[in-house]
């Protein structure tokens, strides 16, 4: 009888130990395998908590429709509460926005852009690779923007898909939607409305579209982006802006 009780207790203890073992991260080998599958590397570098947070805007900015899985997407329903968290959390002093996007839903893109613009903490954006279409408002929304030398930004008119009714009102609607984007970009950068429209309706640059491709330095010269630079410059600029806010000890 005592032996049976001891056996039951032994089993319960083993179950408890196994649960604890799993809670503590389980077998180290499993984590490594997981990391290699998901991220392509065995261990992810750990970092002490930083006062600068960064948000990446990648692939398609997904809006009201979930895109098929072959698309890499930025889920705006996750980015926006993250921006709220950044605004509220007193430990976070600045935000770095890293863009490599091919555009996406207009409303989701403008939503993210407006949130970044109205954040009370200093924000710096870097355009790497590409900051096309609706990525343009997101890039210029921050307090200061950088673009790497090889990055490109495509400025082109918005397009409508699905059933298009051939009446003048359709064009007026498109123009109104387009105006939202143009107004935001010109209000947050040094480019004029006429210049931006000229880039948008340029006919001799893109093979299958109307518009212009700006590469690195072009974007700075035209007044869209503040400076050519990359990660180092962006972080330094952000720390500078945080420092000017009167706070000490930043990292």
């Amino acid at each position, binding site marked *: 009888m005592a032996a049976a009780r001891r056996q*039951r207790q032994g*089993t*319960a203890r083993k*179950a408890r130990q196994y*649960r604890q073992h*799993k809670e503590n991260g389980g077998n180290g080998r499993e984590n490594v395998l*997981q990391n290699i599958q*998901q991220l392509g590397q065995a261990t992810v570098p750990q970092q002490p908590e930083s006062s600068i*947070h960064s948000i990446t805007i990648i692939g*398609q900015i997904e*809006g*009201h*429709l*979930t*895109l*098929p*899985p*072959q*698309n890499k997407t930025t*889920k705006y*329903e*996750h980015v926006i*509460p*993250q921006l*709220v*968290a950044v605004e*509220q*959390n007193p430990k976070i002093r600045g935000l770095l926005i890293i863009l490599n996007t*091919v*555009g*996406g*839903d*207009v*409303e989701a*893109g403008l939503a993210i852009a407006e949130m970044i613009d109205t954040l009370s903490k200093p924000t710096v954006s870097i355009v790497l690779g590409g900051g*096309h*279409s*609706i990525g343009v408002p997101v890039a210029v929304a921050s307090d200061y923007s950088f673009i790497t030398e090889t990055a490109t930004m*495509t400025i*082109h008119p*918005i*397009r*409508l*898909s699905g059933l298009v009714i051939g009446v003048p009102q359709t064009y007026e609607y498109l123009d109104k*939607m387009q105006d939202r*984007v143009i107004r935001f970009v010109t209000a947050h950068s040094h480019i004029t409305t006429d210049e931006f429209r000229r880039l948008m309706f340029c006919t001799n640059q893109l093979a*299958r*579209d109307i518009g212009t491709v700006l590469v690195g330095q072009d974007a700075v010269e035209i007044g869209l982006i503040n400076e050519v630079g990359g990660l180092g410059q962006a972080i330094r600029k952000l720390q500078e802006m945080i420092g000017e806010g009167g706070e000490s000890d930043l990292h």
Partner: protein
Amino acid sequence: MILYTIVPLETVLDGSDNYVPLYSELPLKNGGTLLLEQCGQNSARVVRLISSNPGDYLDPKLAPGSIIEFRAENRA
């Protein structure tokens, strides 16, 4: 819905007819909900976090795409 992108629309929406994801919801301890898509016997991938606490959105374990594993618990 206007998709303002340089990628041709047929590439972006390719496969949207056959893509029917099956989601399940998991209530979190502090009141939020996690939307999961089953991707294996004991694992599910986070699709979306719904929570009123903005701090939750900074937790990498709850970010969309992270895998959550569950195991059957043996209550002796």
